[in-house]
């Protein structure tokens, strides 16, 4: 079984334009993954399946992950010109000031593929692909034409995360019903308001239940007048 570095070099040797990056895995499981660029993902997947040494003919698992937008606070040294009075004369002086800046690092959605080989009995080889952001550019190429087992799993990721897999033969919702809006597995999903009876509510649920009770009591109070 080849290591991640060997697989990366094999891919780059066969497909010179493919951008492949190793993503190390800090845990003791040692399952490092390869990040693929969406443009060349289909070609890389075909190579991995058809190559006689790797023979990764079995796609075991397709997972969706949500990486939300992060607000990063950092201290930055900024050089600014400022007017100061020196010896009674006004001069423009450059001064260095430390500022606290907040910047928004855009999040993305990710799809992770676990591949094994039934013929050579080795694995796993893990591939990853990220979308550009979480709102508008959420397309990724579908690997269903290469491995049929991605069919239902990519549909589920479309349903629960919102990644649109281009080239999928039948992209519809899988677990939620067809008219459902929103994507439940995202980190910023808000559940619908059905908190009528919550006898042992805690934290978030308690807050929502109290809001629900207040919302019901309000119109009654208004109508009672």
């Amino acid at each position, binding site marked *: 079984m080849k290591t991640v570095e060997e697989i990366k070099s094999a891919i780059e040797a066969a497909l010179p334009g493919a951008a492949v990056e190793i993503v190390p895995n800090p*845990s003791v*499981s040692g399952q490092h993954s390869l990040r693929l660029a969406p443009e060349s993902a289909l070609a890389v997947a075909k190579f991995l399946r058809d190559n006689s040494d790797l023979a990764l003919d079995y796609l075991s*698992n397709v997972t969706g992950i949500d990486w939300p937008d992060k607000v990063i606070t950092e201290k930055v040294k900024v050089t600014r010109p400022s007017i100061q009075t020196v010896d009674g004369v006004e001069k423009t002086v450059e001064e260095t000031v430390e500022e606290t800046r907040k910047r928004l690092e855009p999040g993305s959605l990710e799809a992770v593929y676990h591949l094994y080989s039934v013929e050579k*009995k080795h694995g796993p080889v893990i591939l990853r692909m990220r979308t550009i952001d979480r709102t508008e550019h959420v397309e990724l190429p579908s690997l269903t034409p290469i491995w*049929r087992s991605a069919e239902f799993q990519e549909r589920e990721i479309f349903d629960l995360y919102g990644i649109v897999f281009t080239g999928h033969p039948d992209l519809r919702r899988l*677990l939620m*019903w067809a008219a459902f809006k929103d994507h439940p597995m995202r980190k910023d999903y808000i559940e619908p308001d059905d908190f009528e009876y919550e006898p042992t509510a805690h934290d978030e649920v308690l807050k929502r239940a109290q809001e629900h009770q207040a919302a019901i009591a309000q119109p009654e109070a208004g109508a009672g007048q």
Partner: protein
Amino acid sequence: MSESQSHSATLAERPEGWNRPALIQPSGDGELLEVAMGPHHPSTHGVFRMDVALDGERVIRLRPVFGYLHRNHEKIAEGISYLASMPYTDRLDYICPITNNWAYALAVEKLTGQQVPERAEYLRVILGELTRFQNHASSIGFLIQEMGASGTPLMYAFREREKILDLFEKLTGARMMVNYMRFGGCRVDASPAWLDQTRKVVAGLPQFIDEFEQLLATNEILMARTQGVGVLKADLAVNAGVTGPMLRASGVNYDIRKVDGYGIYNRFDFRVPLGDHGDVYDRFMIRLLEMRESIKILEQALKDIPTGPIMDPKAKSRGFRPKPGEAYGRIEAPKGELGFYLISDGGPNPYRYRVRPPSLINLTVLEDMCLGHDVADVVLIFGSVDIVLGEVDR
């Protein structure tokens, strides 16, 4: 049994779309009858719907629809600790809670590198193989019932299942929702009295399989209804991610107990039965033969089980925070490859918790197997896939 077929060499030469269902042209005036089989249906193994388009009796299109039992287990797991997800894994494939627990514990142990003591490994194997036995028994029983046997073989299978569930209750406190595995071992130790009772039950199991085989394996009705029905070719099975008895019935030699050798499975001497044709009859016989192999493993494990601790001494029940990283752990569950993919961010709750459900992925080829057959065979083919909706929908 046939050898495994080499198929990857020819995958590259396949034409475009070779692994999509081949559409059938309806005959006659082309008027199709659309039937929704389910979700309220005695034979759909749970709340499951199949939209079939029929030309007379022949199936032209079949679309599975599920999600009726979706409980968003994966999102719940992101909000509770790792240990608190263990009882929820019981409820995934609710016929085999032990193997669900085992797969989750294995994934967490891969993430953290914990070691499992020997006695705990033996206990895991014993309970896992008992689970496999009762799962295959009830699966075959349900399949025969769907053929019209009015429940008699099913009740024989359930009689054995009751003995095994009694053993589970005496050990773990509950018949089905056992909550038994922990990260680094098992929760409750088995007393010598329990092991003796298990040995007695296991000694009575071969007689049940003999009775079953005599009842059914040469039954003409069974053979006529299942042989040649629902054929699944090996290369399509591998490409579609099918695992478990369904894959082995198509002749592909891939059993994760042999391939990965997780736990202590490489110490036991057991064979992997393979099928020739990949039809419903092969899947039925594979499950029967796997029950015999499970008995072999059980006898060996019950003989060799050592004394000792059952938990990793460094494991703690509260304040469990694995270091950041990810791991994918999988086992050979009775239904197929059950895997858990965990991403940890260093906190007490997992960042991402994913269940790789064998039942859902085995359903990918349902349409391929049913096209061209009569609608009466759809129930049989579906029953031979052996799914549980708790796992499909999570």
